[in-house]
């Protein structure tokens, strides 16, 4: 609390030197894989996806560096404000959101269509990191101190669920849950939540839309309806499995290119990669993600502020959830929930969310030695 801070204020030049260029390289490499796959998805054409994805990556990189260079204490100070703005945007989606893909998820800002529920993943990490930063190790064990953060997760999740987007709602809850976990919330409380969730399943089931119920049925037994609802999963498994160990070669994925594989440029892009580059290609991509996550863990543990540690873990967990949910989904391990593959799938908001998250991760790294007192207002 009264700790000495050797480098509380850094010059812009030093900050730029401090940027974790290894991590940026990994991110760029992953995005490059994505662009190559989009090039293949368009049957060897830069249009319509690859060029736009490059542009998005460029914009994302600028945002990433901008966020990384801003003082972490600024982000600490305005964490709740940012969260609040995102919450208002989520409510706005309810009011003015236009209908897209059968669910209201977009705000049309004219230039881009913004999906606040995606950005909220970062928003929750920020707000929870700020909250638990100010709660002592003892207080974290007390239930009254948990009510506010539960509400922080609950409010946006409820809004997203109402859109209705079950996948993203669960995603938000799990991202928050990860922060809760590393913040030191007692394990039995997680157990309690799981038990409660289990009890709520029948109630939740009745609230699901028919298409959501169908997705779950389909997940449980995709082969029963190979031309109907189970088509996506089955075709994805066929494409993946037929890729074998080394794949069919770049742009040679017959299932993807003959359009048997649905949504090959978005949610099922991993399947196309695994068809064309085989298990080896899939593992290489998984390795890239793991390296980014290792950076995330290292940055988290290296940070001297609790806010930074929690934020880094929140962002890393978000990345993990993206990767795991998407890949598990296309391999038929979990139901189809519509989560994109980070940095690879075609789509603006997801790319933006990831780059913003990575920006916060690098920001934490640059400002790893900055300290912030329990009660806010940096020590320096």
């Amino acid at each position, binding site marked *: *609390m*009264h*700790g000495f801070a050797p480098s509380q204020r850094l010059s812009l030049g030093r900050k730029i030197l401090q940027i974790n260029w290894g991590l940026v390289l990994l991110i760029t490499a992953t995005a490059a894989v994505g662009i190559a796959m989009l090039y293949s998805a368009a049957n060897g054409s830069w249009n319509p996806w690859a060029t736009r994805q490059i542009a998005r990556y460029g914009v994302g990189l600028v945002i990433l560096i901008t966020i990384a260079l801003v003082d972490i204490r600024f982000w600490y100070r305005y964490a709740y404000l940012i969260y609040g703005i995102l919450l208002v945007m989520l409510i706005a989606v309810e009011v003015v959101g236009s209908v897209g893909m059968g669910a209201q998820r977009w705000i049309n800002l004219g230039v881009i269509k913004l999906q606040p529920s995606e950005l909220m993943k970062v928003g929750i990490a920020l707000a929870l990191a700020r909250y638990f930063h100010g709660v*002592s*190790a003892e207080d974290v064990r007390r239930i009254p101190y948990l009510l506010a953060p539960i509400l922080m997760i609950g409010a946006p999740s409820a809004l997203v669920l109402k859109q209705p987007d079950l996948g993203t709602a669960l995603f938000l809850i799990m991202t928050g849950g*990860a922060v809760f*976990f*590393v*913040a*030191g919330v007692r394990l039995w409380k997680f157990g309690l939540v799981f038990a409660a969730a289990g009890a709520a399943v029948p109630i939740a089931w009745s609230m699901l839309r028919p298409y959501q119920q169908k997705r779950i049925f389909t997940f449980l037994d995709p082969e029963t309806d190979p031309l109907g609802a189970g088509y996506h999963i089955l*075709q994805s*498994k*066929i*494409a*993946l*499995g*037929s*890729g*074998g*160990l080394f794949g069919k070669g770049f742009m040679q994925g*017959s*299932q993807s290119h*003959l*359009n*048997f594989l649905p949504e090959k440029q978005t949610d099922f892009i991993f399947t196309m990669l*695994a068809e064309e580059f*085989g*298990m080896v290609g*899939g*593992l290489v991509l*998984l390795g890239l*993600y*793991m390296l980014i*996550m290792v950076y995330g*863990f290292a940055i*988290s*543990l290296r940070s001297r502020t*609790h806010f930074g*540690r929690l934020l880094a*873990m929140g962002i890393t*967990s978000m990345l*993990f959830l993206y*990767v*795991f949910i998407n*890949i*598990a989904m296309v*391999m038929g*391990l979990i139901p189809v929930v519509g989560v994109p593959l980070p940095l690879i799938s075609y789509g603006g908001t997801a790319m933006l969310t990831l780059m913003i998250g990575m920006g916060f991760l690098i920001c934490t790294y640059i400002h790893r030695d900055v300290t912030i007192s329990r009660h806010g207002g940096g020590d320096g």
Partner: protein
Amino acid sequence: MYKDSSRFKSFSRRVAFLGGGKVLLLSLLAGRMYQLQVIESDKYKTLADENRINLRLLPPPRGTIVDRYGRALAVNQENYRVTLVAEQVNDINTMLDTLSGIISLEDYERHRILREVRRRRGFVPVTVRENLDWRDVSRIEVNAPDLPGLSIEVGQSRQYPFAEDFAHVLGYVSAVSEKEVTGDPLLELPGFKVGKNGVERVFDLNLRGKAGNTQVEVNAVGRVIRELSRQEGQPGVDLRLTIDRDLQKLAADRLKEEKSASAVILDIHNGDVLALSSVPGFDPNEFVTGLSSKTWRRLINDPYAPLTNKAISGLYAPGSTFKMVVALAALEARIVAPDHRVFCRGHTQLGNARFHCWKRHGHGWQDMYDAHQNSCDVYFYDIAKRIGIDRIAAMATRFGLGTKTGIELPSEKGGVIPTRAWKKALIGTAWQQGETLISGIGQGFILTTPLQLAVMTARIANGGKAVLPRLIRAAEVDGKEEEPVFKDLGISKRSLDVVREGMNRVTNVQQGTAYRARISEEGMEMSGKTGTAQVRRISKAERDTRVLKNHERPWRERDHALFVGYAPSDNPRYAVSVIVEHAGGGSKVAAPIARDLLLATQKRDPANRTLAPAAAKAPAKSEEI
């Protein structure tokens, strides 16, 4: 400071947990990849190929059918048809409504389409309409956006250029029915037709050929991307019939002058069927495209039975055409000699029953030649009584009556040649001698087909060889070209000469019953026998007053007119049999038709067309005498 470090300790422990959990879950993903891409990879590779590779059958062209001189009787014609893939259509009824606005769809076509859609798998195309003309094709193409799932295909359809004249011989092809689906994938092709009758049915497998196939790569919506491999099928075998197209047409045209009739022309040596006609016929082309129920009802309710091939399935009492068999039975049994004489006073008495001759006041003294020439019934009552039914039946069987000839056509009938045992077994009562008498003039239980009568005549004419009719030479089917050798029936030349002389007198002696239907061209003279088959019983009361003339009775009660014959008389080559239903006497109606047919047949014989070839052939022919 203490507090933060303890908090950091708890934090890093939790981070370690979380990290471990994440590694575990990512390993799960890697494991799943291994399972799908290595362990089960082969299964998914197969499924992927099934996805993308579509095996399509190439229907073989059906073999054509030609006459004995290679002239086309059944051919394939290119046609345009519109097909429908059910799974690409949301609501078939709505789509058919739209379509009927473009080409008029009859109700029966709709029913057939809906029935086929139900029966087949959703991706199998179903034929909506065949033989589209250019106007319909372009109308459908223009409206294609409103008609999803419909497409125009080029196919082949069967055509019978001579329509009804060959209907009974050729039969027809038509859509595969449910019970004919054997698992041969060819049968599931849209618009594939199988032989349903006649030669088309009997030789269906030969004509059908073997399907080829092509492997094509398709995308998710079934569009063909490229062809991967192609294996050509084997076209169906072309069949050459023994029929002479011109004779068949002539026979049909000649028979069409009557209401209901049939005729057969045979080569007496090798059994070649030169013409086999049954009138009225039907248009087999209508069956190919699918009959309307109205046409079908008209065909099956027609009293003249156009769908029946009367030449092979019509059963008639042979009447007087049977008398040669009775005479031969008597001669061969050596019970009567050719000079055996009987006095005909117009009837004969057996117990209380009186058996009438067709000539009310009798023929006077008759020997066997006279009895043939005049067709004297009393004479044959006499010899039938002397030899008994079983001898008559045995001789009739030797001449091919009462059993199927085995001609290459479906639904041939065997007929009936009664014996004592037959009656006992079938009816349960003992044979009556009166029944032997009426059998002696070809009435009573005896039933024969026109084809059998032609075979009988051929066997008399060819010197007692057991010739059998054929529509196709063996070489056409199995490649073994050899003239058939028929076994000798063991009838003495002496007996056959008597009967043939009797038949010669029928047409060539002025008093003969068919003298007016004689052939006067030298060297082409016809021998024959008339027959009049009674189809009702003439009551005593009617006979006492006056037997009604044929034209005074309703059509159904009139006698059948029959004639069997062969030519040339001195060196037989062709046999003919003609039956005109309910037309009256054989000499008036049937004999002139037979004359025309035999004359035309001989004139068409290559040996008779010009003098030079005839001379060249003469030595070979003389051996047959």
